[in-house]
């Protein structure tokens, strides 16, 4: 994991990916929506920047702390 990596806050399933590589985002923007414990959980960026890599796809199961988007 490096600085600028956005990780999954808990284990769950990715249900929506809202960004692509090259997109410019600000702090607080939603990058991915996950589903866990029957709830839709938005994962937000903690700092602004440009998306360098999206490391997950819709339907993927992710673990807590897994890198899902890199800035």
């Amino acid at each position: 994991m490096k600085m600028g990596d956005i990780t999954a806050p808990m284990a769950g399933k990715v249900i929506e990916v809202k960004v692509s590589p090259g997109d410019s985002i600000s702090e607080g923007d939603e990058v991915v929506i996950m589903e866990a414990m029957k709830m839709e959980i938005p994962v937000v960026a903690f700092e602004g920047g440009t998306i360098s890599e999206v490391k997950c796809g819709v339907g993927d199961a992710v673990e807590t702390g897994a890198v899902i988007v890199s800035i």
Partner: protein
Amino acid sequence: MANFEAAMKKFEERKEYSLSMGGEKKLQKYKENGWLNARERMDYLLDENTFQEVGLFTESAEKAMEGRSPCDGKVIGFGKIDGRPVGSLSCDLTVLGASSAGVNGKKVGYLKRMVCGKGIPLVFLGEAGGARMPDNMGSKGMVTMLGNDPTQYQRLREAPWVAAMLGPCFGSPTWYTMMSDFRVMKKGAILAVSSPKVTCLATGEETPWEELGGWRLHSEITGLADMLGETDEECIDILKNFLSYLPTNSSQLPPTAPVPAGSGKEMPDILKYLPESPSRVYDMKKILKVIVDGSELFELKANFARSAITTLARIGGKSVGIIANNPMHRAGALDADACEKITNFLVLCDSYNIPILMFVDTPGFLVGVEGERKKLTGKIINFMNALTLVTVPKLTVVVRKTYGQAFLNMGGGRNSDTIVAWPSAEISFMAPETGVNVVYNMKKEDDPEKFAEKMKIMDLDKEPWNAARIFNLNDVIEPAHTRDWLINMLTYHFNYKTNGIGQHLMHCWPTSY
């Protein structure tokens, strides 16, 4: 006459020496950095002209340190905060690193005995390098300082103890901080057992200061810092603000404050903060702010275990302790850290006669390997144990979800004096879909029609009406009336027999775990 003159001259000289701290050069460094020195901190903390120093003429008992150790590096005394008496200790890092030694050990022990015995709060303004060398080396050294006071590390919560970490804290300021009910950390301060230098000598690892014990570590990972401040002044203001919610000691009630104009004015629109769809998240703090006086929350450990909220507040001018789930983080699920944070908070409120309010919206405990490795099982039980030992009023409002064992931990069953639900509440053992998975061993994709049929059976009854019908909820209440309901219930659930003073069954609960 001459005798008195000579004696008074000595008095003035010694006083000047005692007040000189570590000397101009070291004090200048504090000024340049915008830091308050030990005595300035004490003055900032206390109401003007109330500081009554004790031990002004102390210094090290060692011959070699004579004339170089004013107040033996630790300034102690009594004073008032907002007109209420407190005892206070301010470490003077400019004098031999405020290191612990025989004389200052006696001073600190004395101060602790007085505040515990009389029942007044204790404030630590901490920064120090650890134990003094070479004084404490060898078998004589160990006993004169370290082995001298059998109650040195005992904590019985007779009165609130609060600590500010205002610089490097190694050794004694770390211990005082860990014994305290509330800890504020200045950014740039360090809290650790020993300095990076000593640690490196012991382990061979070179660890950067911030990693060993900086504000990020203690605010987000360990949760040992309840709040953060940028400057000495900000940290001290935070300590004073905390104390304003608490009584002077555990046999008294917290002070009542005036109710700010406009408190609760948004109550008719409170439902706008709750999403229509039950699978959507929101920030529970927004709901809490509508309800409390002046929309003001004094939140402890805000950056730690964020799926739970532990905050002091006032309702109708009275201090309350609010425990709530925050769906915005981890869907409001209770993980190991959240259980710890809540347990800590239950002990704090119960020990100082502060009624506890719970606002519930949780899908349950966050199961999985991460939790098991952090002993989630034990933390759930510590939480339950603490909840049942509370003897201050417990009022619970189920805002939305409450499932499984978490339902009990969050005030359900008979674990509150009164529990009510909003019409939006969902109460059950587990989410209906999971129920079908487990009981009928099938997934939605296997046979959607049959699944839907079984879902109807599992989905029954999670609305609050049937619970209310058999008096397992005291009531279902209109969300817009929640503040008024709370003010009312705080009146009726006050313990009139003891004038609101609890039994403090957790007064010896550990101060960290």
